[in-house]
C-alpha cells in the first residue's frame, strides 16, 4: 500500500498560480488568433494559413497568434478563431490565404468584432453544403474534447491554468487503491473497441506482483475510418499525459510508452513537446509533486498496419519482433512488454482520467447508459454535410449522429449503407438508423461500435463493393500467423469477386457464411475474429441484393 501524501495538491496550486500569473502578463488586453492545425486540416492548407497570418501579424503587439489542434468541425476547416480582449469570439471557416488579409484588417477596428465569414468560403468545385457549425456542436456533449481547438497544445501553462494536472494531484494525494476504486466505481470502459473496464486491467497488473510494470498508451489508431486519437494528441496532448501518469500511479508503473502510429507525425511532434514540458516541471521523472512516485514517459512509433493496434501485437512491435499477436493467456497485465506486467489503455480511455479524478465522477456517471457511462468519440465521415469528430453520450443513436450532428446526407443524395465500427464491424441499412451506439453487439449479425467509426454511404454505392473493400483490407492486413485467417480472408475476397463480376452462385454465399464462422472462431486476434462482421451483416440486411448477384 502506498501511503497517501498530503502535499501534491499544495504543490499543484503553486504551479497553477505561477502559470496564471505568467499567462496574465503575456496575454492581457490582447486579441488571440487561433489557427486550428491538425492532421486533417493540414491537408487543406491550415499550416499555410498559419504561416501567412504569422507574416501578416509580425509587427503587431496587440494580438497573439496561436496554433491549436482542431475542434472536430473538419467540414469547416481550415478554421481560425479570433478572440477579442472582451472575450467575444468569432469563428472563421474554410479560410483561404486570401482571407488572411481580411482577418488582420478587421483587427485594426479597435475592439469591434471582425466580419465573420463563416460558411462563405469554399472551393468553387465543391457544392456548398449547409455548414451550420452551431448545430454540429449543439448536439454533442464534450468532456474529453472540451479543450481541443481552444488550448494551445504547445503551452503547458494554459493547460494548468485551466485546472490541468489537478486530477493528477488529487490522485496522488490519495492511495493507489482509492484511485483504482474510484475509476472502477465510475465504470470507465476501454474506448479502443473492447470496452473492458479500465481499472480491472490495473488490478490485474498489480496482482501480478512482478516489477517493473509498464503503462502503454495505445495510439496506434491504424483502423480505417478512425481519426479520434490523433485529434486528442494534436489538440490536448497534456490531457493524455495526465491520464497516463494517473494510470501509472494507480498501477505503480515505472515507465510509460505512447505507441503512436507511424504516419501520425504531427501527433508525435506535439506529444514530444508536451513530454519535454512536463519533464521540466517535474510532473514526470522522480518524486512527482512530492509524492515519492517516479515515472518516465517516452514515445514509440508503429510501422503501419491495423493489426499493430492489437495489444499483444503492439508489444511485439515495441520489442522489435514481427507484427503478430501472442497467444493469450498470459495476458499483457501478467506478461506484457519484455514479459513484465503491462497495462495498455487506449488514448481515449486515458483522457477520461483527469476529469474523473478531478471530481468529475458524479457528472460522468450521469452521462451515457447505466451499463456504459460517459461519452464516446465518433468519427463521422462519408456523404454527410458535416463530417468530423463528434463526442456524444454513449447510447446516442445513429440518427442523432448522422442528422443532428452531421446534418444528414448531402443535398440530392439518400443514405444507402452505414458502415459502423471499422473494417471488422458491419454494414447497416437506413432502417437501422435508430440503433443506439453502445458496447456489445449493435446487431446480432456482428455489428459493433468498435472504436467509433460511422461512414455514411449513399444509395449509388453497392453493398458488394463495400463488403469486398473491407474484406480485401482484412486480407491484406492479416499477419499470417493464424492459418484460418491467412487462408480464409483471401477466400472471402475471391468469393466476393465472383459475385461482383456476375459469375457468382448461391454456393458463394454459403462459402462466405462458412468462412466467416471458421475464421472468426479460429483466429487469435480481433482482425480474424471480427472479419466476418461485414459479410454476416451484409448477408442479413442486404441478402436480396447479394442473392440477385448469384444470377439465380
Amino acid at each position, binding site marked *: 500500500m502506498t501511503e497517501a501524501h498530503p502535499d501534491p495538491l499544495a504543490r499543484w496550486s503553486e504551479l497553477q498560480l505561477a502559470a496564471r500569473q505568467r499567462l496574465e502578463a503575456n496575454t492581457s488586453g490582447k486579441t488571440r488568433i487561433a489557427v486550428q492545425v491538425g492532421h486533417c486540416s493540414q*491537408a*487543406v492548407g491550415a499550416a499555410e494559413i498559419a504561416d501567412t497570418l504569422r507574416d501578416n501579424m509580425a509587427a503587431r503587439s496587440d494580438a497573439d497568434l496561436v496554433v491549436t489542434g482542431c475542434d472536430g468541425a473538419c467540414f469547416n476547416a481550415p478554421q481560425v478563431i479570433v478572440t477579442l480582449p472582451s472575450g467575444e469570439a468569432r469563428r472563421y471557416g474554410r479560410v483561404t490565404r486570401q482571407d488572411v488579409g481580411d482577418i488582420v484588417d478587421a483587427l485594426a477596428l479597435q475592439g469591434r468584432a471582425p466580419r465573420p465569414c463563416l460558411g462563405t468560403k469554399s472551393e468553387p468545385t465543391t457544392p456548398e453544403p449547409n455548414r451550420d457549425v452551431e448545430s454540429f456542436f449543439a448536439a454533442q456533449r464534450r468532456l474529453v474534447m472540451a479543450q481541443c481547438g481552444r488550448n494551445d497544445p504547445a503551452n503547458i501553462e494554459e493547460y494548468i491554468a485551466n485546472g490541468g494536472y489537478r486530477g493528477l494531484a488529487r490522485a496522488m494525494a490519495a492511495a493507489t487503491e482509492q484511485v483504482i476504486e474510484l475509476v472502477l466505481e465510475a465504470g470507465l470502459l476501454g474506448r479502443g473497441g473492447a470496452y473492458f473496464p479500465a481499472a480491472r486491467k490495473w488490478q490485474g497488473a498489480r496482482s501480478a506482483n512482478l516489477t517493473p510494470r509498464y503503462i502503454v498508451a495505445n495510439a496506434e489508431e491504424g483502423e*480505417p475510418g478512425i481519426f479520434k486519437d490523433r485529434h486528442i494528441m494534436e489538440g490536448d496532448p497534456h490531457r493524455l499525459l495526465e491520464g497516463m501518469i494517473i494510470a501509472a500511479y494507480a498501477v505503480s508503473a515505472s515507465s510509460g510508452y505512447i505507441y503512436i502510429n507511424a504516419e501520425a507525425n504531427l501527433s508525435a511532434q506535439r506529444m514530444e513537446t508536451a513530454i519535454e514540458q512536463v519533464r521540466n516541471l517535474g510532473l514526470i521523472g522522480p518524486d512527482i509533486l512530492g509524492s515519492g512516485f517516479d515515472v518516465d514517459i517516452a514515445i514509440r512509433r508503429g510501422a503501419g498496419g491495423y493489426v499493430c493496434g492489437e495489444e499483444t501485437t503492439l508489444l511485439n512491435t515495441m520489442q522489435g519482433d514481427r507484427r503478430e499477436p501472442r497467444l493469450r493467456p498470459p495476458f499483457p497485465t501478467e506478461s506484457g512488454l519484455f514479459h513484465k506486467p503491462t497495462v495498455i489503455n487506449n488514448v481515449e480511455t486515458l483522457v477520461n482520467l483527469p476529469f474523473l479524478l478531478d471530481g468529475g465522477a458524479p457528472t460522468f456517471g450521469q452521462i451515457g447508459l447505466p451499463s456504459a457511462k460517459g461519452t464516446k468519440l465518433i468519427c463521422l465521415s*462519408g456523404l454527410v454535410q458535416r463530417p468530423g469528430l463528434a463526442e456524444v453520450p454513449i447510447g446516442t443513436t445513429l440518427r442523432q449522429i448522422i442528422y443532428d450532428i452531421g446534418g444528414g446526407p448531402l443535398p440530392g443524395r439518400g443514405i444507402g449503407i452505414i458502415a459502423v465500427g471499422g473494417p471488422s464491424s458491419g454494414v447497416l441499412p437506413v432502417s437501422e438508423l435508430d440503433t443506439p451506439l453502445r458496447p456489445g453487439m449493435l446487431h446480432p449479425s456482428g455489428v459493433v461500435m468498435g472504436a467509433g467509426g460511422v*461512414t455514411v454511404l449513399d444509395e449509388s*454505392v453497392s453493398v458488394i463493393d463495400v463488403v469486398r473493400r473491407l474484406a480485401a483490407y482484412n486480407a491484406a*492486413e492479416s499477419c499470417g500467423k493464424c492459418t484460418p485467417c491467412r487462408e480464409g480472408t483471401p477466400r472471402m475476397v475471391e468469393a466476393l469477386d465472383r459475385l461482383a463480376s456476375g459469375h457468382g452462385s448461391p454456393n458463394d454465399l454459403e462459402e462466405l457464411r462458412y468462412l466467416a464462422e471458421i475464421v472468426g472462431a479460429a483466429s487469435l486476434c480481433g482482425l480474424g475474429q471480427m472479419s466476418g462482421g461485414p459479410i454476416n451483416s451484409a448477408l442479413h440486411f442486404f441478402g436480396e441484393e447479394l442473392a440477385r448477384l448469384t444470377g439465380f
Partner: protein
Amino acid sequence: MERNELRPLLRQKFPQERALLLPVLHFLQNEIGYLPDWALEIVGWHLHIPASEVYGAATSYTELRLNPSGRHLVRVCNGLSCWSNGGKELLEHLAAQLGLQPGGTTPDDRVTLEETPCAFLCPMAPAVEIDARWWGRATPDSIASQIRELA
C-alpha cells in the same frame, strides 16, 4: 548513403538494443527512401539480430518498403469515405494521365502511383498524398496539375 557509411552512423545514433529494430528501420527508410538488402544485413550486425529475422520483421510491416519507388510517390486513399467520395474517379484519372496501372512506375522513373488503405483523412475525402504531403478535398484537376509539375 553508401554502404560503408551505414555502420558508423548506426553506432553513433542507436544503442545496440533489439527493441530499436523498428526505429532503425524507420530511420533508414527516411534516409534512403526504402530498405535495400545490404542495409538490412548491416542493421542485423549492429543490433545482433540474424539477418533472417531483420528481413522477417521488415517484410511484416506495411509501412516499410523493400523496393525503391520512382522519384515521386503519389498515393490515393482507397478507404470507404474517399472511395465513395471521388477517390475512385481520381485514381482512374491519374492512372490514365500517367499511362500506368496503380502500383506501377512511369518508364522514366518519375512517378510511382499507388493505392493506400485509409489516410485517416476521412472527413477531407478524397485524399491524395504527393511525396509525403497529403491533400484533402482533392479534385482530379488540382492533383493532375501538381503531378505535371513534378520534375
